[in-house]
């Protein structure tokens, strides 16, 4: 248990150090936009107060340093990507009807769909305008590549969201099909790693290597979040209603008997804590879920192998810790 705590704390500290500056700037940037409508200003303030995304800017910083670049050079790009990720996060909550995240009401829950839509748009616009402003700081060729990465990877994310939307409420979806969506959703993590490496002047082969690492890490993050949702009755109910079922449940559904039992619980109007505990037990005892665990292990191994050639050992071990923290307890 102690080791676990240490690992999570370690990852948190590692990412915080790399993200704090950019997070502060991003907050200032969005709060600079003064609107006449009080609700929008309040919604900006609300999001900013709870905004603590250290993962995305942290990845840019790690990738930049891994190729020998200065972490400070990556800050403006971290700010852009923070805003961009926030925009999609806010819009995603509208689509998924997510009312609670990390224990706090989302902008959607607190201010409603319309304000959340406008706030997401504002973040998106702000991000894209700031990205244009970076044209002065980076050579044209580099900026072209960055635009290209952002365009293609965020289109992929939107595509994944849309595919997921079309599968809402479908309990017969195969785990492989949903895994494909998780893979597509991991595109933004790949984008962050690639961009960090480009900003740090990395060669194409290392940019690709770090991009692949980012994709694998993104998939692992997605799977981990799916495992966590199995433990949260409220979140689980939202997943049933507004999203796809978490991956471990879909794996467990490979066994028709288990599927029948779990569906009995899921069809209840309200899932009690006791029901949730039972679902967890059933899932964790299910052989097919073991297949998922093995898949996770393989992905982690591939991610470790991919970064073994990183010459900066300190950075390499930081990247290993990130992967390790994602597979702990699964």
């Amino acid at each position, binding site marked *: 248990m102690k080791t676990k705590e240490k690992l999570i704390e370690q990852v948190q500290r590692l990412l915080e150090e790399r993200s704090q500056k950019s997070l502060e700037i991003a907050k200032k940037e969005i709060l600079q936009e003064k609107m006449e409508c009080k609700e929008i200003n309040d919604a900006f303030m609300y999001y900013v107060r709870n905004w603590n995304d250290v993962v995305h800017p942290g990845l840019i910083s790690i990738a930049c340093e891994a190729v020998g670049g200065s972490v400070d050079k990556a800050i403006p790009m971290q700010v852009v990507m923070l805003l961009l990720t926030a925009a999609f996060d806010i819009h995603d909550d509208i689509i998924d009807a997510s009312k609670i995240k990390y224990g706090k009401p989302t902008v959607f829950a607190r201010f409603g*769909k319309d304000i959340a*839509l406008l706030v997401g748009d504002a973040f998106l616009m702000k991000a*894209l305008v700031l990205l244009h402003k970076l044209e002065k700081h980076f050579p044209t060729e580099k900026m072209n590549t960055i635009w290209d990465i952002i365009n293609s990877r965020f*289109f992929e994310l*939107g595509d994944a969201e849309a595919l997921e939307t079309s599968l809402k409420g479908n309990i017969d979806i195969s785990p492989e099909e949903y895994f494909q969506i998780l893979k597509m959703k991991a595109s933004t993590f790949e984008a962050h790693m690639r961009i960090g490496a480009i900003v740090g002047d990395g060669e194409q082969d290392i940019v690709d290597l770090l991009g692949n690492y980012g994709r694998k890490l993104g998939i692992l993050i997605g799977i981990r979040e799916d495992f966590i949702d199995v433990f949260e009755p409220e979140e689980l109910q939202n997943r049933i209603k507004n999203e796809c079922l978490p991956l471990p449940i879909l794996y467990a559904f490979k066994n028709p008997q288990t599927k029948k039992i779990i569906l009995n619980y899921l069809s209840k109007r309200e899932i009690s804590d006791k029901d949730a505990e039972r679902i967890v037990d059933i899932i964790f005892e299910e052989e097919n879920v073991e297949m998922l665990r093995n898949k996770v292990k393989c992905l982690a191994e591939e991610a470790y192998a991919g970064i073994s050639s990183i010459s900066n050992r300190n950075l390499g071990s930081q990247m290993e810790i990130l992967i390790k923290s994602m597979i702990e307890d699964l």
Partner: protein
Amino acid sequence: MNQKQPSQEEITEQVQKILEERGRKALEMARQTILQEEIECKEVREALKYFMTEYWHDVARPALLSLACEAVGGDPDITTPIAIPMTLISGAIDIHDDIIDQSKVKGSRPTVLGKFGKDIALLVGDALLFKGFTLLHEAVEKGIPAEKVAVIINIIKNAFFELGDAEALELQFRGRIDIAPEEYLNVVRKKAADVEAHTRISAILGGGSEEEIEALGEYGRLLGIIITLRDDWIDMVDFEEISHRIKRECLPLPLLYALQSPKTKSKLSYILFKETTTKMDAKIISEATDEAGGLRHVDQLMQEIARNARSFIKHLKKNRLALQLLTDFCARLISFSIREDVNADPIDLTINVSS
């Protein structure tokens, strides 16, 4: 000598011709560009295709860019690399706006929201916004100087935020009959930021002087206000639209003016708070608005703004007449009595000047 005034049909025909000639190319290029994107999700692909090929026929915005650029002595073709992204960005705003207003049908066509639902509409709007900005980045390669692109992007951003602010303020007007016309006009003015951005940007692209850029900016803002007021006027005589405005949006300006009269307010309050609006209700609302002078008031306001708008374009090098015609077209439509037409077929105003 008495010169015969052109009829509404003649003006419509001329305006349509100008807008088609000036705006069609950029609209087509915008369509081609966005439809090239490789998208796995069939629904998003179909929604994008539907929006760009069957729904979005906005030739007015790219035409305005072309006209205003030439008006300050610029080559209208240089506006194309900016007109394409701006077409996509305007489309994105329109789609997201429909989600907020829950507009499922516009004119006779279902919106993306109406046809594909909220989630797909949201994602399609995001995709258009994203693509629009990526294309603005590419405008430099297409010959627009980088420093001009930077200024243009700032104008687009400010307009976008002003529009968002207007949308958010308008949300507070839903279901209310006590909105002061001035309060609503403040929102209308903010909404006109979009048209101002177009005329201002084109003046910059055309190499206009500071005065010309300012004059065209002011003209665009006023034209934008006229367009919204025109829509408000038309909504008063369209059953579907007036019902939607009562239920989901802000009441149109003629009605807000009419409700300033305590007599009209007491007559209409009951109808305006009803769950559903019938055709008979719509007729009563329209007639009472007319009787209280709400329509005339908005008509006069539009004429006054149009006169003001014309004063900003009188010193332009070229296209004064075309821009004047466009202003007249938007401001001059209302020359018939509502009592005769409230039950008639919808007015044929096929040019999509506003979104």
